[in-house]
């Protein structure tokens, strides 16, 4: 392992000190997985700037023993998706809030709270907790995910056995200025089953979240999340997905503000004719301090005739930074792969920057893989066209920004949910004109 070779004494000390400062739950049936994760974390060490996948993003605030203060901002808009028929689960500073949550009853879906279920032995969850995370550590180390598996204090374990009649909505409420939340969810979508998972809210001052999703044969999983808005909050999140034969996995993320967001998606396509799409729309305004948004994506094709898409768009202003590191790995057996990757940024001023590292690694000979990356400003010709029709300049810019983001939003299958996301975007753009 590369991480072992490059680790030095300082990294070992820092990692040991961080682990010593953590409160580590013993765990019931997750105990062995937590112990293994801790070993992995010690072996790879916490990241440093010179690590290949941390060159563009400074991990200091994520490595620190204590989070930097991040005050919870008052809500200025109604809760996203509140008008949709859904089952709502609420976490406050990373702790499940049963009072604020709906009854955990949804036909076709089994839901357990991690903190409680750990005392029981839920065999399907034992096969999942930390398992996909561990698989996702090769060939690129993801130390914060290992830390999460070892130290997660709460989360939900979800098993989907039929077609869920409504979406499951997890809302992450942020309350404490120094809250440091470590949340871990596992989702198993059984063959032919289907679930839509919605995730919203600012979560905590510092938020480390892992979502492990195992989509079995013919299963369908839709994921739409909106990372909210507290300006100083810092988050590192991982989605680890394993996608089986003829299964569908789709994940879309909207990120507005937050000082630091690192979203990793690690997707392993293991069954033939499967589809995996991962998309993101990020809006960053550096006006309130720092805005740094990093999407790091790794899609592995290990089956025949599968399709993957990565669509990432960022709108940046006032010194905001956007990062995209995306990889498609096609293993020798993955013939007839159709892989696509696009990352684009719209820079609204000269102070903002976009750093992109697209990677393709292909070992099969009969595949179709394409990738592209662009950085640009608002198209002056299009802007003039809209204004010449009487649309005021700021409205015209809003239309062009929405136009820029359209391909990412198109990755949301449900039209109502997509409309809610667009409305949220419009609200943000209206508040941050000029």
């Amino acid at each position, binding site marked *: 392992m590369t991480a072992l070779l490059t680790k030095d004494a300082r990294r070992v000390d820092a990692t040991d000190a961080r682990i010593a400062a953590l409160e580590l739950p013993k765990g019931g049936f997750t105990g062995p997985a937590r112990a293994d994760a801790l070993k992995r974390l010690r072996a790879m060490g916490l990241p440093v700037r010179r690590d290949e996948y941390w060159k563009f993003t400074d991990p200091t605030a994520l490595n620190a023993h204590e989070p930097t203060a991040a005050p919870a901002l008052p809500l200025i808009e109604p809760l996203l998706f509140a008008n949709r028929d859904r089952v709502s689960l609420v976490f406050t500073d990373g702790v499940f809030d049963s009072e604020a949550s709906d009854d955990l009853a949804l036909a076709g879906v089994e839901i357990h709270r991690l903190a409680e279920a750990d005392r029981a032995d839920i065999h399907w969850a034992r096969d999942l907790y930390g398992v996909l995370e561990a698989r996702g550590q090769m060939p690129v180390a993801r130390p914060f995910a290992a830390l999460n598996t070892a130290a997660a204090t709460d989360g939900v374990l979800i098993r989907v056995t039929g077609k869920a009649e409504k979406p499951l909505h997890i809302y992450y409420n942020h309350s404490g200025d120094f809250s440091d939340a470590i949340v871990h969810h596992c989702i198993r979508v059984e063959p032919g089953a289907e679930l839509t998972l919605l995730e919203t809210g600012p979560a905590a001052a510092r938020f480390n979240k892992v979502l492990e999703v195992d989509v079995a044969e013919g299963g369908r999983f839709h994921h739409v999340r909106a990372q909210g808005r507290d300006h100083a909050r810092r988050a590192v999140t991982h989605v680890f997905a394993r996608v089986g034969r003829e299964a569908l996995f789709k994940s879309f993320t909207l990120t507005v503000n937050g000082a630091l967001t690192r979203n990793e998606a690690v997707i392993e396509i293991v069954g033939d004719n499967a589809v995996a799409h991962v998309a993101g729309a990020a809006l960053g305004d550096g006006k309130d301090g720092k805005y740094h948004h990093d999407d790091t994506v790794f899609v592995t094709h290990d089956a025949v005739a599968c399709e993957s898409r990565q669509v990432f768009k960022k709108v940046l202003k006032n010194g905001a930074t956007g990062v995209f590191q995306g990889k498609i790995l096609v293993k020798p057996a993955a013939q007839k792969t159709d892989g696509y990757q696009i990352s684009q940024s719209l820079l609204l001023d000269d102070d903002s920057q976009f750093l992109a590292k697209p990677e393709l690694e292909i070992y099969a000979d009969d595949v179709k893989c394409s990738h592209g990356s662009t950085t640009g400003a608002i198209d002056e010709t299009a802007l003039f066209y809209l204004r*010449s029709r*009487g*649309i*005021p300049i700021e409205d015209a810019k809003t239309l*062009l920004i929405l136009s820029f983001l359209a391909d990412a*939003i198109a990755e949301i299958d449900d039209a109502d949910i997509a409309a809610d996301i667009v409305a949220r975007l419009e609200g943000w753009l209206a508040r941050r004109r000029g």
Partner: protein
Amino acid sequence: MLEIKNLHVELEEEGKPILKGVNLTVEAGKVHAIMGPNGSGKSTLSYVLSGRDGYAVTEGGATLDGEELLEMEPEERAAAGLFLAFQYPVEIPGVGNMTFLRTAVNAQRKARGEEELSAGEFLKAVREKAKTLKIDAEMLKRPVNVGFSGGEKKRNEILQMAMLEPRMCILDETDSGLDVDAMKLVAEGVNALRDPSRAFLVITHYQRLLDHIKPDVVHIMADGRIVKTGGPELALEVEKNGYADIVAELA
């Protein structure tokens, strides 16, 4: 209605003069045509009047109904009743044609202090006008100009014109890239809008568009100036002899 006086314009970046003293008056109810060879400044004139960036007015000016046009923002000019049908209509992925039209119509109404159209009123008006231009529901739903053929794009420009009901319409090479049938359709759309209170400035290379949109006055533009003005017969003369004779005769 539109009055252009001694208009001098240069490209902002290069400082290259393009318009070198254009004088032109277009009266309400009239159709004026501007013809001229490539590079004579026809399109520049349309862009300067509608407010595109990148041009510097060094002398002279233009008024619409007595109001200084060149000091207004493009959207203010539109609200004041100016419309430019683009030679190359712009594609805007991800923005529905209907959304775009409705945003534009209501923005102009708002700017003029009028009530915005309700969704129902708007839909009814669009459907009616789209029908005469043979624009189907599918085309209205698609993103603005994305995947439209040349003819569809130009018809879409005329639909916008019909919905926005401007009083001063400038058509920049609307015939370019159109076959005869598409040109007829576009011309019919324009003719349907002819009205005693509305004026047109039709910019074109060729006489053929003017067979369908009959001008009252024809101007020849060369080297940044209007060099000759006449009736519809002037367009026929150009068709027969080209621009070289006219330009040579003036030299």
